[in-house]
């Protein structure tokens, strides 16, 4: 059964390009472009827009990171640059997403280290970067200024803006030419509101990626799936304030009880399963970037997206 809906839509999702090569004033070896959808995927018509991409997530303070990943990586996790080099070289994600988890420890004040870490990651990999800063309003101003400066010209995707605290992130994007992740707590109206706030402060819509917030599988994922669909249908029906590509990361996947308490011999397999089966449906719901933390999830997820997005029986 096919349902043709393409002709009913009046809107389309905008495109966003992340990263800048030497020609654009950056140092990335390539750029990626997301968005451009003109229909929902998999309801009869071939998928429209750009194919979903995989971002590999890492951090600068592994004590705040899921244990299965740290066990798998060993010493590599102690140096974010080495971690990025290893993951990018061996597992081939499309982007690297760095969480500056160091800023989330009580009493953080090592601002200079942020600059160094961002610079080191830029050196370590040529992939386009997503950088997640602090989530404390007291620190935001300094942290996001440092991220912005360190990555000037690289067209980073910076996160995460929320309704109560978006000014520093927007300022960093506007001052140093970056893009912004705008997150709302599984609520289409708050997603729209935040995008309007960002526009009013002067950040154009083509520099925003929506994060609708993703719950782990069995821990609220269905709500996220549903809100992604609603955001996407609103965009296709012509709501410009929601017509941005989406990023999805079920960040709790590796800390749920089932993964935490898995038999050590099954730890890696369980981790991959929990990430894979959350992120693949997220692409179907409309996410343009899906994020994982266990390196072994990258290849099967890539293969699954490839299989879904390629027409049956081969061809283009």
């Amino acid at each position: 059964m096919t349902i043709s809906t393409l002709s009913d839509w009046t809107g389309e999702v905008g495109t966003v390009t992340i990263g800048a090569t030497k020609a654009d004033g950056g140092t990335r070896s390539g750029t990626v472009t997301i968005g451009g959808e003109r229909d929902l995927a998999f309801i009869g018509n071939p998928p429209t827009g750009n194919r979903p991409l995989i971002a590999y997530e890492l951090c600068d303070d592994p004590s705040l990171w899921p244990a299965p990943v740290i066990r798998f990586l060993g010493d590599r996790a102690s140096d974010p640059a080495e971690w990025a080099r290893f993951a990018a070289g061996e597992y081939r994600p499309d982007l690297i997403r760095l969480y500056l988890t160091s800023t989330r420890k009580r009493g953080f004040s090592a601002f200079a280290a942020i600059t160094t870490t961002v610079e080191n990651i830029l050196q370590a990999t040529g992939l386009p970067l997503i950088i997640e800063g602090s989530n404390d309003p007291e620190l935001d101003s300094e942290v996001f200024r440092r991220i912005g400066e360190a990555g000037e010209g690289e067209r980073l995707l910076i996160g995460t803006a929320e309704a109560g605290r978006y000014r520093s992130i927007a300022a960093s994007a506007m001052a140093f030419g970056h893009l912004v992740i705008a997150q709302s707590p599984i609520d289409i109206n708050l997603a729209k509101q935040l995008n309007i706030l960002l526009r009013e402060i002067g950040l154009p819509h083509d520099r925003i990626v929506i994060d609708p917030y993703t719950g782990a599988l069995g821990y609220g994922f269905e709500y996220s799936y549903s809100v992604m669909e609603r955001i996407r249908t609103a965009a296709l029906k012509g709501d410009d304030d929601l017509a941005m590509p989406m990023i999805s990361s079920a960040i709790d996947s590796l800390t749920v009880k089932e993964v935490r308490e898995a038999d050590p011999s099954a730890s890696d397999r369980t981790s991959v399963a929990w990430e894979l089966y959350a992120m693949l449906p997220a692409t179907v719901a409309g996410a343009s970037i899906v994020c994982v933390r266990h390196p072994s999830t990258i290849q099967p997820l890539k293969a699954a997206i490839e299989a879904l997005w390629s027409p049956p029986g081969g061809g283009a």
Partner: protein
Amino acid sequence: MEQLSGTFSYEETAYHLPVTYALTGTAVHSADEARAAFRATGESALVAAECLTAATEAAGKGAPPPYTGFLPDAVLRTLGYSLVDGSILGLAVVAGTPQSPDAAAALCRELQEKYMLTFLSGGIVDSLTGAGVKVGPELRLVPLGDRPSSAIHFIDIIARVAMMFGGVAPGDADRLLSYAQERAKAIAIVFPGLGDDETAMFDAFRLLGIPILSAGEYEGNEWIRVSVSEAVRTGMDLKGIKVSVTAIPIPMACSPAFEGKSIRKEEMFVEFGGGRSPAFELLRCRPVSEVEDGRIRVIGPEIGELKAGSAVPLGIIVEVAGKAMKKEYEPVLERRIHNFVNYGEGTWHVAQRDIIWVRISKDAVSHGVRIEHLGKLIAAKFRMDFPDLLDAVQVTLITDEQEVLAAKKEAERVYEERDERIRGMKDTDVDTYYSCTLCQTFAPNHVCIITPERPALCGAITWLDGKIAYEISPSGANQPVPKGRVIDAERGEFEGVNRFVKKASHGEVARCSLYSVMEYPMTCCGCFECIAVMLPEVNGFMVVNREYKGDTPSGMSFSTLAGTIGGGAQTPGFAGISKTFILSNRFLQAEGGIGRLVWMPAMLKEELGERLVRKLTERGLPGMFDKIADEKIAVTIEDLTAFLARIEHPALAMKPLL
């Protein structure tokens, strides 16, 4: 300009001579180009000052450190960051040589305390250093140069911020000026000691909307004369730069997260209004001199003197002042009291005007919440939510019964005056209606269209309120709806309204009749004051209000009906309406008008009372008031049919509805 020679440029910038570049779009690097730009701008004093300053600094003749001279782009980017980020609120330039170094020092400290980034030009720098004030960019006091003319860098900063952050194209002088006037929060404070050229240069600052506050002997131009001590406040007021309120100092959490909670009788310490005691709320706009920001007064007993579990009179009077505030905004702002009180973890509020009902919980009182804190909460939230509109908010809370009753009289006069303003207006008098999508939080596809003769179905927002809400917040939930070509005048269907509704309902609703319940009626959220329901058996309509809990001739109670029609769906035969819409000539227009009304609860009939009698007479139906049945006459369709036949209700003789 004639003496300029050779080539010169600023370093570390992509914007050449920024002021000249922004105004003319040409990159000036030589004396001849400078003279050409000077002529092209009609001999602009700003261009002249910039070219001369650039030539001097390029020749190495600028003032030595700590003076900064021209600031490179990298510094500007960080500065722009702080402006967007909100860590600095605005920009100030202080120029000339103050007569009293101590007064100047105090002025600069005030600028620092108020998060202004301040640039210094001329003798002021020495005065400050002499008075023991440290200067430097890290202290938000930037010494530009030893001559007042170095203040031209202040303008090259604004020009570059406009080009970097505001998307102003070089050469688009109009955009530059409007950007500077609307967005740049900049003021200039001048002390004595300016030469003629420098005076002309500062005078040209005014084109960019920068107020020039003169603490010197300047006369005969448009500068604002101030004493040194009031310069900062006057300047910040003029540009609407406000230090924002961030925390509310009350012993109770306060957030929209608590908005939906209720305080049940057992949890309540004291209540006000709700039919149990007289209570009202009123917001008035006052001259700035009459409002002391943050002042809270309680007239009558405080919480400690009240008996637990009692009902106490309450008057909430909010007085606001602000340059942009208008009297017409009063009712719209007044409605916000409802949200704000509900934001409090232990305070609860329903309804509006003189039918409010407020409760404070036992829990809150045990944590030290007093009546006074209601006022603090309201005042702080108004300042936080309307920073551009309001400069000062004071709140008076009255709990003394006699005082409440006296003040309530005045409030009722104000309510009446407000109602009068909208009463005479007709839908045909305007070509723009207003939408309300406030309820899309829970009814995502619902769109209210508000016209002069049809208020929002919640009864809280009239056409005027919608218009004002749009003025206050242009991207808010009330948007203008051009009504466009008439499709059907009887049903009130308009092309523009349909277009708007289709888009705002995310494609769910394509057509909307404003004056019909039968064909393409307006959708309902869940807030309607009343529901109009078609009763096919009697060829008429009943209306039931939210407060009525009993059965109705439709066989359904209000809550059952509400569950059937709410949530943003279009349900022919049913409509959510406000109470006052019953009195509108547009009520049931497509179905033959108010003559179709066959049943209402007695309480609603009584509430509309005289006004309904008058409206019926005006519509040529004298005596019909008694023909409208209520629950004392009939609660079943059989009894209603018999009654209507007996009194010969006009609806029976009208064209069949089905």
